[in-house]
């Protein structure tokens, strides 16, 4: 009798997970439907449309109807050394800017973390994060004004200190580094914020234990802080990388890709193809390329998140 009841109970247990997820699944799909429809309409369809267009010769200013040209747009893109230079320049911008922002962000983040009882800390943090919340267009405009050799405050200060006027944005050697400096000014607070979040994720007990054990600072960093902080910090680096790869507003306003093409990043080139020359087929092919780069960066990001999950499960 007991064994029969127990057997029934076990069977009911087996059945339950089957039925309940079915109900939940339906409800889940129902709740997800509006979002999915929205996503499909505004994201999937345009992406597929763009993918399709990339195989066509289609220029809005031309009298010709779109014609299927296969991989011509892609081969044109690969053959065009001017555009390859633009892609390389974008990667150089990304690497230099993200490295600078990460190093400075870590330094500043650690400073605020260590000095959590510093008077005026909250106000300092609020002011420090301001560049990050100002729109990039506004940032670009006021930096452009500040760096103007004739009317700008930066040159006014330089000449007051006895230096000669410096042409930051139209010098073919200074324009690119200047953009990196401005991008770093704008986004270092973000990396500092990520550093603070990362350091905040380190359990206090472990830090206290490390202090009691008098672990040398480098051991504290490698054995206690880094294992916890690395996921958030890596996430910050990846988000910045994706964002830096798409940079357009800063270059468009400050230099318009110039002087010559020394600050022409790929997103600005894409803008020109699509909205100045109206070459929709060609610009779609360039967009597909950019999409793959973004997907690759996102894949790295997901890999790291999964690694975190696995690490947590192991613990």
């Amino acid at each position, binding site marked *: 009798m007991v064994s029969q009841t127990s057997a029934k109970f076990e069977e009911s247990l087996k059945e339950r997970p089957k039925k309940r997820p079915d109900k939940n699944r339906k409800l889940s799909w129902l709740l997800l439907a509006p979002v999915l429809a929205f996503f499909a309409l505004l994201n999937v369809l345009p992406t597929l449309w763009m993918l399709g267009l990339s195989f066509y010769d289609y*220029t809005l*200013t*031309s*009298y*010709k109807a779109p014609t299927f040209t296969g991989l011509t747009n892609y081969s044109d893109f690969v*053959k*065009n*050394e*001017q555009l390859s*230079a633009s892609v390389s320049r974008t990667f150089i911008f990304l690497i230099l800017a993200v490295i600078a922002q990460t190093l400075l962000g870590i330094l500043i983040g650690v400073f605020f973390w260590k000095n959590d009882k510093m008077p005026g800390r909250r106000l300092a943090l609020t002011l420090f994060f301001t560049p990050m919340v100002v729109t990039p267009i506004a940032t670009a405009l006021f930096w452009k004004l500040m760096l*103007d*050799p*004739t*009317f700008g405050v930066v040159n006014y200060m330089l000449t007051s200190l006895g230096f000669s*006027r*410096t*042409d930051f*944005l*139209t*010098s*073919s050697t200074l324009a690119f580094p200047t953009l990196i400096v401005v991008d770093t000014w704008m986004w270092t607070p973000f990396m500092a914020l990520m550093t603070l979040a990362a350091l905040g994720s380190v359990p206090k007990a472990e830090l206290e234990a490390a202090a009691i054990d008098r672990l040398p600072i480098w051991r504290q960093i490698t054995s206690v802080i880094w294992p916890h902080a690395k996921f958030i910090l890596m996430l910050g680096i990846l988000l910045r990388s994706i964002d830096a790869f798409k940079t357009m507003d800063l270059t468009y306003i400050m230099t*318009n*890709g*110039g*002087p*010559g*093409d*020394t600050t*022409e990043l790929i997103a600005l080139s894409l803008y*020109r193809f699509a909205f*100045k*020359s*109206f*070459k929709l087929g060609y610009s779609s092919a360039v967009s597909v390329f950019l999409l793959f780069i973004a997907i690759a960066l996102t894949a790295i990001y997901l890999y790291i998140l999964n690694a975190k999950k696995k690490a947590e499960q192991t613990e």
Partner: protein
Amino acid sequence: MKADDVFAANPELDIEPFSSLVKNTYQVYPDGSGIRWGFPQMPDTQGVFLRKDMLEDPKEQAAFKQKTGKDLPSTYEVLSNIEFDDLVEIIEFFHRPAKGMYGTALMYSKEYDFFSCAYYPFAYSTGGKIWDPETNNVYGILNSPENEKAMEQFVGLKKYQPANFAAFGIGDMIDLFTQGKAFSAWQWLAVGKFMSSDKVPADKVISIPLPKWKGNLIGAMGGQPWVINAFNDDDHMRVAVDVLKWWYTKETQDKFIKENGGLPWSAEGAANPEYLEVAHYVKPFLYMLEEGRSQDFWHLPEYAEMLAVQQAAFNGYATGQVKTAKEALEYAAAKQQQILYKAGRTETPPPDNVDSLKI
């Protein structure tokens, strides 16, 4: 919508222009077809704005005479026929960067058509051409020795300008001149009203046509027409035509020209003595609008793409990214030939190395 159709129904809108430049620049497409699509709105030509007060200063006149042995011209009559070399001599005389006064300002910006339009008079007036409108060929025409020399001369004027000269567009020139930091500015005459300020009042400014190169002068055309959208419904079409009728009334044109810095472009307007006296920039504007005195370029749908290519290359030369004018012209010519060839506008392919060209 074809302007010719609107003119047929509203003959009062078909106004005789001052010169064929108005019709060919703002109305006709394709070039030479005689088919009109546009309605003249605000034609524009180029000139040079000068500090009249500095030219008229007796001390400056004496110093100039002592330095060069020549009289410093200060009247429109003399200055409107000045040779390029003579104007540069005056610019050099007034170039005093240590005192915050630069000799001149021209447009070299990569933005829109700033560099190109400022450079074209240097090329056109010294025998250069930028393309062949019959065959739609650019390569071998734009990259010519004449254009190379003209570009070197144009960029050579940077020594009389502030360090960021290569970023100058219309607005930057207005700022520089009206803040009293430049003796002269090569500028569109349609912005003449804005080339003065409290610091540099209008009575201290004189504008003249572009200088001549051994007696030759061909400027670039600016400005824009009205056009009517062919997809308008009947109501909007009627309103569009009504706006044009209002725009061309004497009252509106009076207000536009006398109070708001507009310029006369019709045969009747150009003959109106009131318009001629309204501001110093009207005379040079009409001078530059005379037959053959200015010319427009590329009435083609590929315009924006062709322009972007040469703006980057030319600006690259001005800023030192591109080492020589020859390289900049070679790059622009090859890329433009490729654009036109791909668009099916010419049968002549670009040079074989076009894809490997970089600035």
